[in-house]
């Protein structure tokens, strides 16, 4: 179900942005205030909550053992799922994941996977037979725009907070030993979403801005300022020079966030 936004509001947002101003007083390339808390769910192996303005996302990490994929016998498995809980917005309904939540999950997945954030080779118990599977579950609790960046940041924060049980193998059986080990993390991708409204580019769009935007581009940037994943969304278009401008914005913003989070 699409949410309705009044014409007056649409016009107001468009006029403000044309004057390089925004509903909440931010400049076009500014993020909202960001708060990240780690380890909020004790039952999960790792967890984090992010507040990005009024957008709230919790990510929980569970780790289980299972079989590796046949084409990557020497690597652990990463699985990302996203739930747009009906708590989070009048537009979300219970039921199997729709295309919006599948897209969010796949963007978060691609950022982590393509940047090689997790050292999956260290998650192998018995090559080709038994590996650790890392389940990343993104739980959207309040939707006020930019779920992609909030989910990707919370997922990374949760992975950084993840502890794995120590184990040893005795007669082919896995025995859990006391103590914990950190999940091996190699890289820290940061996903930045740039929205196009009129002929202006803004970062971290509010829900109301998303409702009037032409299109968005999300880019995952690693610590070497390399781009590791991109997704364009929305039923509008970017001109080629806007794509390159968005890439520059994403690089700058990712650097700022990285500094703030110390990743």
């Amino acid at each position, binding site marked *: 179900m699409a949410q309705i936004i009044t014409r007056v509001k649409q016009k107001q947002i468009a006029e403000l942005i044309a004057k390089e101003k925004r509903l909440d007083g931010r400049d076009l390339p500014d993020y909202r205030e960001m708060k990240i808390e780690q380890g909020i769910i004790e039952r999960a192996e790792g967890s984090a909550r992010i507040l990005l303005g009024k957008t709230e996302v919790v990510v929980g990490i569970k780790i289980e053992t299972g079989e590796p994929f046949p084409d990557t016998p020497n690597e652990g498995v990463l699985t990302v799922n996203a739930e747009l809980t009906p708590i989070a917005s009048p537009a979300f309904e219970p039921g199997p994941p729709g*295309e919006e939540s*599948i897209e969010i999950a796949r963007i978060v997945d691609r950022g982590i996977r393509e940047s090689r954030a997790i050292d999956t080779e260290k998650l192998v118990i018995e090559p080709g037979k038994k590996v650790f599977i890392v389940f990343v579950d993104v739980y959207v609790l309040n939707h006020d725009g930019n779920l992609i960046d909030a989910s990707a940041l919370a997922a990374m924060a949760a992975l950084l907070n993840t502890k794995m049980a120590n184990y040893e193998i005795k007669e082919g059986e896995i025995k859990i030993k006391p103590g914990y080990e950190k999940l091996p993390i190699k890289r820290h991708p940061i996903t930045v979403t740039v929205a196009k409204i009129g002929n202006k580019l803004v970062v971290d769009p509010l829900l109301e801005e998303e409702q009037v935007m032409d*299109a968005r581009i999300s880019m995952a940037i*690693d610590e070497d300022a*390399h781009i590791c994943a991109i*997704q364009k*969304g929305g039923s509008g278009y970017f001109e080629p020079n806007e794509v390159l401008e968005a890439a520059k914005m994403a690089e700058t913003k990712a650097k700022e966030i990285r500094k703030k989070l110390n990743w």
Partner: protein
Amino acid sequence: MNDKPEKLIDKKGLRLDGRKSDELRPVKLEVGVISNADGSAYIEQGKNKILAAVYGPREVHPKHLALQDRTVLKCRYHMAPFSVQERKSPAPSRREIELSKVIRESLEPAVFTEYYPRTMVDVFIEVLQADGGTRCASITAAALALADSGIPMRDLVVACAAGKVENTIVLDLMDTEDKVGSADVPVALMPNLNAVTLLQMDGILSREEFETAVNMALEGCKKIYAIQKEALKTKYMNISEEIKEEAEE
């Protein structure tokens, strides 16, 4: 199973199938291939074989999805179970659901959706054989099918990917290059409006490499666009010739 080739690019700079870095695979396009559909197209690009068909504008189903100010554009990208090396379950995968969404969003800017309120237009894409770059080939075919259906459009949409293989930016990755290569950047373009309607990437690229890849993909799009236009013309040239022949008889 696929064996990993040792080298994707040889000493002469040629790729596995003998192409240069900025060379497309052979593209064959045909319009009006499904007689039941309101519009349809078939594309072969390398070993890709993909059908696209358009039904509509027609009544919205389910009814509550109808929009009062424009048509609902629906898109289903689907791979046949026999289209890949290991049988793919016919149930839609998460990848197919995501691709259906991005393909729809790549076509929507080109369609005058406001001309047909309270209706829907279905775009069905069936990948009969996959050889890397199916989403791009699907967009190229689907845009032709839309045009063939007679729905007014601002422009055609044409798509092509570029990527990175062994430190070289290359155009139009085939299956092995896509799997073994280090980055893939699919791009869709409305050529006359110079508007990018699809952009994705996976892999790792510096911003300079990304820029090179996007530009290379855009050049590829323009080359395919020429073939696309020709395919559209051919169908109607054939029809006018048939009419002429009939008149002569």
